[in-house]
Each structure stands twice: as structure tokens, then as C-alpha cells.
């Protein structure tokens, strides 16, 4: 009895070491080599115990081994922990046919076991780990065998060490914030089997899409450029690959994703509608490990481990598509010469300098390229770096400093004798952010800090090739310098009432080098330039400031039930000048300046939060109202790309959005997932558009239902499914047609977006099949997924055009004789039923 208890102790010790390492306040405990764990109903008690007793058990085990290893053919091997690579002492090793004649592993995890006849099944078991059964054959006698025990995932669930309390949904001050565990994200069936962070977020309430085939997020009435998507504190300008089909994040490289769409604490700012805060995974400090996958369109691999000692670690991650590899096999030369790929690389280094300081450096580089027969090329890159320093000044005071640089560029080249050119542009944001956290008491926490950032939009250059008849174009650079100071106080007035009050002051300047055009009557709408002012480096061209109060309160109404409210004001100083709904690699960002004012939002939200069945189910009901001011749109036929007077093409107005989000979520157990329903409306009112009356932008989709479910059938098989139902996007259909200039033209009414696409709905399914764990170092799994299971033809676009010869592919220029012409509507849909398979592995 004593023996068994001791083994439990060791087993759980190993487990706890794995879980608590690097988790902040707990890490010191790790230095004590052993713990005692006791289990009372569902709770675990952790107590530091003397090491002498455990040493005795090791000694006992070794002696036992010696007595067993006396004669006969021996199978020799060792048993290690798969996760940490450390030896597992005290594990049971026995032949399946004779469980009573077993042995236990020694302090180095080694064992020797006698055998009379082979093949036989050898069983390795240990508390807290999944049992291994492997067939041993004659040739195995020649070499020492290695067995890797995997933590038993059933018991893992009960020893989860998390920074999130089980009742956090109810008691925290978080309102309109969702954390998506990467493991859950990886289970969601994905387009082409490519697990995609942004597509996963689109399944959350309050997050809309403008259509299939785009990863853009439209959150609580905000457009896609109103989301601050940041990786380890550095913003990313274009978080998509392949024109928005995929997002730039390799899921294996990610640690955590948090979406703030309601209350954004004063520590953060810069965008109106959301913060998507992504942390890259840190490497483990025990041994080199890896994971990856081979998918239908791309493969990925991630390796992590200790760097020089257990005080530092690295992680490196890469992913590349291979559509172009297949293109090379095409018999058609035109297709063979095309190129289409993306890849991304990311890495993170961590150093723990003594006990109080931690330094991390993260970098991400992603590139896309589309090349057509060496004549046309379009490529774009994101490169982001971030250096973070955490210091524990004392037990109450923490310092967090991040310096970052985010760079984006694109290049379009066209090789033609007469009109060839190279067109490129780049822009960047660099910044430094320092934050002090003061834990005044259990009731009061204070965060304060500074954030300084520089946005630089380089001149947009179009350089003709030699001999080209077109002339070069270059716009002027635009630079913005923004400084922010923030203070956030979190105070618990009583066990029932908590309040978070914050203030953020942002000060922004457009600075030189640059040019300001002066227009007739100081009105850029006239387009008549009366003077041009040039500014030298660093000279102030225009300035704005914004005071951004943030307030949130939580009131506990009873056991597992709370009411929360928040008010948030945000300013945003850079935005994309576009009038299409999807983001493009060549989108033009414009910073605030003399004529373009910063945009502002005010959001009021209120929510009821309830946990049910011992915190197994989380229920939330949130409502919000949001005002937008100085929102921009473009005038009809606007040209913003090569225009140095981009302000002449813009119209500014206001917007508002409101909605109710209902969600039931289950995070623990064999079945996890959520069901959500959102009812929301979005309006814009911009003089010069829609007869100056309010209109709905394309992404106004009043009803939105998402169901995301994952069920673990057994240790090896998991099934997942998603179902989405949303109102169709708001669009404008013709109300007639006419002939002008020999063309048949659809006639539109004076109002924008008063028609709807049909409702969008789709179901995706996937099965994840883990290969049998034979205790080897490699562990594989297969993921089979089906996108759009019932082959719903969700429209991507409608084209209003003449149909010739009753055939949508016929056209007058095709040489075919035209016998009939009539007006018609042609629908394009992107994805029918689409199966995909991915092989994932870990080592």
C-alpha cells in the first residue's frame, strides 16, 4: 500500500512539473523536487514534502530490478516521458500473458525483463500515463528498446493549470471578450483542411464576414480595418494569404488568441472595433519536440526546445503551400509557367534572466506570390518583429516593455515591351510600449504605461520598364506619430461589485516629410489645388488628440450569475481607403491628416452571464450599441491608388450599430463547443451616398447562428462539426435596364444595399483519427474533413448581363453564331462540397 501511494506521488509529480512550469507565480514551486498530492472529491491538494522518503522508494525499485535480472534471454529497454523526455522510474513492465511476472523501471527509467518465447506483447503502464502495448519480436533482443509514455489525457483534464478560473465567465470584468483555445480551433473543420484562426473567430457571435472566401472580420458594425490584429504586441497590416482565402497564422505556432470586441481595457487602443491579441507559443525548456502536418494544399512543421539551458528556449515554425508544385506537372505550358504560393515562418526565443527577468523575441515573416508566365507578378510580404521584456520588480510591481516593428510591402510587375512596369509600395508601424502593473491589494490592481508609435506609408511608386511608353508615378510619403498614455484601475468594492476604470489619452501628429495641398475654399471636394506646402523631416503637418475613457463594472446577482456593463471610447488614426468589402493586398492605407480626421467610436454594452452545472456550461447574453463618427467612404468612381490627393476622393459621415449576442458554451468534458445566435444591425450615413440617407453596409447580416461542436468518442477518435446560418449580405440589385452607347446597362435605384443575397448556410464535418500509440517517439493522426457537406450553393456574386444563345458561356466574340440575346442573371458560387485530408504528427 505504501509502495503504491509513493508511486502515485512520483507520477503526479512529473505531471505537475509539466503543467506548472513557466506559469508565472507557480514556477518557484517547481524548484522543490517533489510534491504530495491528495485528492478530495474533484480537488487536488498540493503539498511540498520531504525528499528522503522518495529516495528510499527509488532505492527499493533498483534492488527489485537486480533480483529480477538474473538469468535467461533479456529484453532491455527504457521508459521515458513523451512530453518532457525525462526518465520514468517506477513504471510497471510485464508480459501480457503473465502480468504477475513483471518488473518496474529504475531511476533512469531502465528495465530488463526475462522472456522465454517470442513474439509476445509487452505492456508498460504507469499511473497518470496511457498504457503502452507493443509486440516484441526476436530482433528486438539485439538492441535496447525505447518506450515513450504519454500523459493520460483523461486525467489531464482534472489537473489543468490555467490562468482562467472556471467561473471566470461570471466573476471576471470581461465583457465582449472571448478566448479561443488553439486546441479547440484546431478541431474546427476547415476549408481545405487548413486550420484558420480568423475563420475560427468568424464563428463567434458579433463577428460577421462580408462573404465566403474572405477572412476579413467585421466586428460589431466595424469594417475589417478597424481590428487591431497583433502578434506578441506587434500589429499586422494584412493578416491574409491568397487574397483573403487563408489567414497568415500557422496554428501550431500559436499559444493563445483573445478577441476583445466589447470592453477593451485602456492598456490597448488604436482601432475602433476589436483587438485580436495573438501570442506565439514559447518553446519548452526540457527537450526538442516537434509537430506538424501534411495537408491538401500546404504542409507545416514546428520545432521547439531548450536553447542552451533550461532557462532559455526556442520555437521555429514554417508552412508552405504547394499548389505551384502541382502546376509544374501540367501538360499546358501556360499553366506550367504560373506560380502561386505562400509561405510563412515564425520563431520565438525566450531567455529567463535570473528569477526576475524574462526576455522574448518573436518574429513572423509571410510571403505570397502569384506569377503568370513570367509576365505578370504580384507578391506581398508581412514582416513583424517584437522584443518583450518582463521584470518582476517586487511581488506587487511588474514591468512589461515591448518594442516592435511591423512591415508590409507589395510589388506588382508587368513585363511588356510597350507598357511594362514595376509598381511597389511599403508601409510600416514601429513602436515601443511600456506598462507597469501594480498589485496594490487583492482588491485593487493598477496598470499604467506609455505607448509611442510611428506609422510610415512610403511613396507609392510606379516605375516603367526601359522602353515602356508609360510615365513614372510617385506619390508623397505620409507619416504619423502617435503617443498614448494610459491608466487602468481595477477595484473590487465588495465581493459582489467590481469596477474597472481606465483612461487613455492619444495624441497624434502627421509629420514630414510630406506635402499638404491647399484647396479652393479649404475644401478638397472641389479638387482645385491653389497651393502646395512641403514639409521637412519631422515637421508637424496636422495634429489631433483623443481622450478615450473606458469603464466596466460587474455585479454578482447570485451564485454563478452576474450582470456586467461597459462603456468604451476609441480613436483610430489610420484606415483603409476602399469601397469594396474584401481586403486586397494593394489596399491603400491613409493616416489622419489635414483633411482626413481620425475616426471615433463609442460603445455601450450590457451583459448577463451565468454558469451552469458546476461551471461546465457558460451562458452569456450581451447587448451593445455603438456609434461611429467620421467614418469614410469613397465617392463614385474614386481612384485612390495612384492619387496623391486621396482626400479629394473621400466622403465622411457617421455610423451606428446595435445587437444582441446569445451564447451557450461548454469548455470541459468529452463534448465541447458552443451554440450562438446574434441579432445585429449596422448603419452608415454619409453625405453624398444613398441620397444622404442611412444605409446598411454589405456586412450587415441581422441573423447569425453558429454551432460548433466537438465530441471525443474515445482516446483516438474525435468528431467535429460546424453549422452556420446567416442572413445574406446587403447588396444593390438592378430595378430595370436601358441602352446607352450601344451597351445594355442595368439600371439601379438611388438607394444603396436595399436588396439581399439569399441566406447563407453551410455545414462542415471532420473526423480526427489518432494512430495507435505504440510508445514510439512519433505520434500521428489523420484529419478528414468535408466543407459544405450538403453542397449548398451559396452565392459569391451575381452578374447582370446579356445571355446569348441561352448559354451563359457564349459570347459574341467567341466566333459562335449569335441566335438569341436576353437579359439574365449569372450566379457564381465558390465552394461546393469539398473534402480534404491532413496528416498531423508530433514527436
Amino acid at each position, binding site marked *: 500500500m505504501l509502495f503504491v501511494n509513493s508511486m502515485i506521488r512520483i507520477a503526479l509529480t512529473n505531471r505537475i512539473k509539466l503543467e506548472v512550469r513557466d506559469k508565472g507565480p507557480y514556477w518557484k514551486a517547481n524548484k522543490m523536487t517533489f510534491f504530495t498530492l491528495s485528492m478530495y472529491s474533484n480537488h487536488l491538494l498540493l503539498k511540498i514534502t520531504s525528499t528522503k522518503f522518495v529516495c528510499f522508494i527509488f532505492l527499493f525499485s533498483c534492488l527489485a530490478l537486480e533480483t529480477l535480472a538474473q538469468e535467461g534471454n533479456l529484453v532491455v529497454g527504457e521508459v521515458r516521458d513523451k512530453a518532457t523526455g525525462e526518465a520514468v522510474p517506477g513504471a510497471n513492465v510485464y508480459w501480457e500473458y503473465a502480468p504477475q511476472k513483471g518488473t518496474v523501471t529504475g531511476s533512469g527509467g531502465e528495465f530488463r525483463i526475462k522472456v522465454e518465447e517470442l513474439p509476445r506483447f509487452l505492456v508498460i503502464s504507469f499511473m497518470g500515463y496511457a498504457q503502452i502495448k507493443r509486440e516484441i519480436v526476436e530482433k528486438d533482443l539485439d538492441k535496447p528498446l525505447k518506450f515513450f509514455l504519454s500523459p493520460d489525457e483523461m486525467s489531464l483534464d482534472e489537473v489543468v493549470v490555467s490562468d482562467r478560473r472556471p467561473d471566470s465567465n461570471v466573476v471576471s470584468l470581461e465583457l465582449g471578450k472571448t478566448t479561443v483555445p488553439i486546441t479547440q480551433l484546431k478541431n474546427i473543420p476547415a476549408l481545405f483542411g487548413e486550420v484558420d484562426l480568423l475563420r475560427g473567430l468568424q464563428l463567434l457571435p458579433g463577428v460577421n464576414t*462580408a*462573404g465566403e472566401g*474572405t477572412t476579413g472580420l467585421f466586428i460589431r458594425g466595424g469594417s475589417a480595418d478597424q481590428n487591431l490584429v497583433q502578434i506578441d504586441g506587434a500589429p499586422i497590416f494584412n493578416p491574409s494569404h*491568397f487574397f483573403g482565402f487563408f489567414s497568415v497564422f500557422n496554428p501550431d505556432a500559436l499559444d493563445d488568441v483573445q478577441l476583445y470586441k466589447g470592453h477593451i481595457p485602456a492598456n490597448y487602443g488604436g482601432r475602433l472595433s476589436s483587438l485580436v491579441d495573438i501570442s506565439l507559443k514559447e518553446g519548452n525548456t526540457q527537450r526538442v519536440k516537434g509537430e506538424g502536418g501534411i495537408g491538401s494544399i500546404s504542409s507545416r512543421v514546428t520545432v521547439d526546445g531548450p536553447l542552451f539551458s533550461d532557462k532559455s528556449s526556442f520555437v521555429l515554425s514554417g508552412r508552405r503551400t504547394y*499548389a505551384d508544385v502541382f502546376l509544374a506537372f501540367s501538360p499546358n505550358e501556360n*499553366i506550367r509557367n504560373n506560380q*502561386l504560393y505562400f509561405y510563412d515562418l515564425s520563431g520565438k526565443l525566450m531567455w529567463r534572466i535570473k528569477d526576475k527577468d524574462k526576455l522574448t523575441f518573436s518574429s513572423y515573416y509571410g510571403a505570397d506570390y*502569384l506569377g503568370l*508566365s513570367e*509576365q*505578370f507578378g*504580384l507578391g506581398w510580404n508581412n514582416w513583424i518583429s517584437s522584443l518583450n521584456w518582463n521584470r518582476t520588480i517586487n511581488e506587487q510591481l511588474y514591468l512589461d516593455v515591448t518594442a516592435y516593428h511591423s512591415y508590409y510591402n507589395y510589388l506588382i510587375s508587368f513585363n511588356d515591351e*510597350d*507598357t511594362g512596369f514595376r509598381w511597389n509600395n511599403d508601409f510600416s508601424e514601429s513602436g515601443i510600449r511600456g506598462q507597469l502593473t501594480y498589485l496594490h491589494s487583492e482588491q485593487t490592481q493598477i496598470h499604467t504605461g506609455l505607448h509611442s508609435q510611428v506609422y510610415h506609408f512610403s511613396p507609392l511608386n*510606379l516605375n516603367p520598364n526601359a522602353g515602356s*511608353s*508609360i510615365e513614372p*508615378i510617385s506619390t508623397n510619403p505620409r507619416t504619423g506619430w502617435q503617443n498614448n498614455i494610459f491608466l487602468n484601475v481595477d477595484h473590487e468594492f465588495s465581493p459582489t461589485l467590481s469596477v474597472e476604470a481606465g483612461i487613455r489619452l492619444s495624441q497624434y501628429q502627421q509629420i514630414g516629410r510630406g506635402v499638404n495641398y491647399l484647396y479652393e475654399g479649404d475644401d478638397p471636394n472641389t479638387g482645385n489645388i491653389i497651393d502646395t506646402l512641403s514639409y521637412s523631416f519631422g515637421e508637424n503637418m496636422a495634429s489631433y488628440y483623443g481622450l478615450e475613457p473606458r469603464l466596466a463594472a460587474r455585479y454578482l446577482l447570485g451564485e454563478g450569475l452576474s450582470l456586467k456593463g461597459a462603456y468604451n471610447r476609441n480613436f483610430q488614426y489610420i484606415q483603409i481607403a476602399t*469601397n*469594396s*468589402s474584401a481586403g*486586397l493586398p494593394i489596399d491603400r492605407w491613409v493616416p489622419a491628416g489635414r483633411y482626413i480626421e481620425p475616426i471615433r467610436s463609442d460603445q455601450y454594452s450590457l451583459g448577463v452571464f451565468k454558469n451552469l452545472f458546476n461551471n461546465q456550461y457558460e451562458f452569456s447574453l450581451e447587448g451593445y450599441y455603438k456609434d461611429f463618427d467620421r467614418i469614410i467612404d*469613397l465617392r*463614385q*468612381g474614386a*481612384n485612390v491608388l*495612384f492619387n496623391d490627393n486621396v482626400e479629394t476622393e473621400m466622403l465622411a459621415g457617421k455610423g451606428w450599430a446595435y445587437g444582441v449576442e446569445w451564447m451557450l458554451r461548454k469548455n470541459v468534458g468529452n463534448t465541447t463547443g458552443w451554440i450562438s445566435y446574434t441579432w445585429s444591425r449596422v448603419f452608415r450615413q454619409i453625405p453624398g451616398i444613398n441620397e444622404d440617407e442611412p444605409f446598411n453596409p*454589405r456586412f450587415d447580416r441581422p441573423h447569425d447562428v453558429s454551432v460548433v461542436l466537438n465530441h471525443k468518442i474515445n482516446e483516438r477518435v474525435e468528431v467535429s462539426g460546424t453549422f452556420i446560418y446567416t442572413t445574406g449580405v446587403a*447588396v*444593390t*440589385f438592378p*430595378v*430595370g*435596364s*436601358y441602352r*446607352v*452607347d450601344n*451597351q445594355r*446597362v*442595368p*439600371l*439601379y435605384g438611388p438607394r444603396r*444595399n436595399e436588396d439581399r443575397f439569399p441566406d447563407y448556410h453551410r455545414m462542415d464535418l471532420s473526423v480526427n483519427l489518432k494512430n495507435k500509440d505504440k510508445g514510439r517517439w512519433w505520434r500521428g493522426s489523420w484529419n478528414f474533413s468535408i466543407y459544405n457537406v450538403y453542397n449548398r*450553393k451559396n*452565392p459569391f*456574386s*451575381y*452578374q*447582370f448581363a446579356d445571355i446569348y444563345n441561352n448559354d451563359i458561356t457564349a459570347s*459574341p*466574340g467567341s466566333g459562335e453564331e449569335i441566335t438569341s440575346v436576353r*437579359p439574365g442573371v*449569372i*450566379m*457564381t*458560387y*465558390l*465552394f461546393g*462540397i*469539398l473534402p480534404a485530408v491532413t496528416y498531423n504528427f508530433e514527436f
Partner: protein
Amino acid sequence: MQKTILYIVIAILGLSSCQEEVRLDLKNQEIIPVIEAVWTDRASLNKVEITYTRNYYDTLDNPIEENAMVYITDLENGERIDFRFVDRLGYYLPINNASGNVGNRYRLEVIIGDQRYHSEGELLEPPVFDSLTYAFEPGRVFREEGYYVRMYGKIPFQDNNFYRVKVVKNDTLMNRRGDYLLFDDTFGGGILENGFELGGFTFQKNDRVKVEIYRMEKAPYDYLNQLVNLLFNDGGLFSPPPENPKSNLEADNGVGQVTGYFIVSSMISESVQIMGEEEP
């Protein structure tokens, strides 16, 4: 371009993207007049055509307005040029084959029943159009094998550089949506001096090619540009919300809707016949 790239991406990815014809329930709007008025320095080009819009799915011809009062006033000298409806042609022609003078400003008035519409424009001086040349080009990725024509000339103006090029092949005007050739001075004014190739048009031996250059003010140019954008708008994610091109015609007192254009333009043309491998 954006959509072309999108479809290429989809095609390369081998996606199951598909198209099919559907019937959508569309609203109908009351009909409004469509006025196409062209006033140039060439009498043969001047005309005013007035039709009406119709429901989207209608297959009948658009109704023609035959009883409007149409006239143009020369704002330099006050001279009024009346137009008369010609049954045979289905549009209005100026009396006495009148034409405009370069440098003058003109005002169009159209009266239908008790509703009046008007617009104004200046007849701008044409650019220099010296010659057309042609050369045989082997097939390339983005274009077919055949003869390509190049225009030579000079744009000597600082302002109002808004041009439309019309190509007439063997007496047939090239008028598909892809045949519109509109250019301004965004990419410089030197485009004709270096020889401007009509890259979108392939010709064969013995083709007769006529190229017309129209110089106009910004408003009608914008109309044509927006018209082309609309003809290529597929209502998808990558397209701006579709809107009617902004007409430069207005109803008097702002009452009553109208669409169409009043193009006041000079026209200059050159012709060439493609004879052999290289131009002599």
C-alpha cells in the same frame, strides 16, 4: 484586374467554383428617360437619342421618345440649333447638318412634355494625331497573334486631358464592353509621342482600321469611365457597390430623373489598311 486575379487563383487552386443562371426577384422602378447627346465638330456624328428604361427581364426594345423638343445653344454667340426626330433612324438630328466650333461652349436643352433637361460643355481643341502604324506580333500570354496598330501624335495640353479612342474595323465600330479605350494624363501626357499601341485589338491582313480620338471634358469622361466599371461590376466582394454612372444631364429645378450623357467633343481620326508583314 482584381477579379481576373481572383478567378485565376480559384482556377489554379482547382476549386469547385461554378456559375449558373438563376432568376432573382427584382424590383421594378418607374421608367425614366435616357438621353444620349453627342455634339462634335463633325456634322455626321451629331445626334440626340432619347429612349426610356424598362424592367430588367423585359426582352422588348426600349421605348423611344419621338416628340421631344431638342436644341443646342452656342453660348458664345447665342445661336440656337434645333434638332428634329428622324423616324428612319429613331433619333434626332440637327437641322441643316450643323456642327460645333472648337473653343465654343454649348448648352443642350431637351423638353419632354412639361419636363425640361439640360447640360453644358465646351468643345475642346483636339490633340495632334499624326499617323497609324502596324506590325505583326507573335502570340503572347495575354494576347493573340496578329497585327497590332500604334497611334502617333502629341498631346500639347496641360489641362482637360480626357480622351476616348474608338476603333472601327472594316466599318464596324468595336463596341463590346472590353473595347472601351479611355485615357487621361494619370500616366503622363507623352503617351502618343512614343507611339500608343492599341493592345486590346488584334487585326488580320487586309483589315481596314479607323481610329478616332475624342477629347472631352471631365464630366462626360467620368460618365463613360463609370459606365465601363459598371459593365464589369459583378456585385462581388471585390467590386464597389454598383451605382448608375453619374450623368452630366440635369432636370430643370432638380425635378425628375434622367440618365445618359451630353458629350461635347472634338474628333480627329486616322485610317490604315493592313497590307502585309510590315508597313512599308
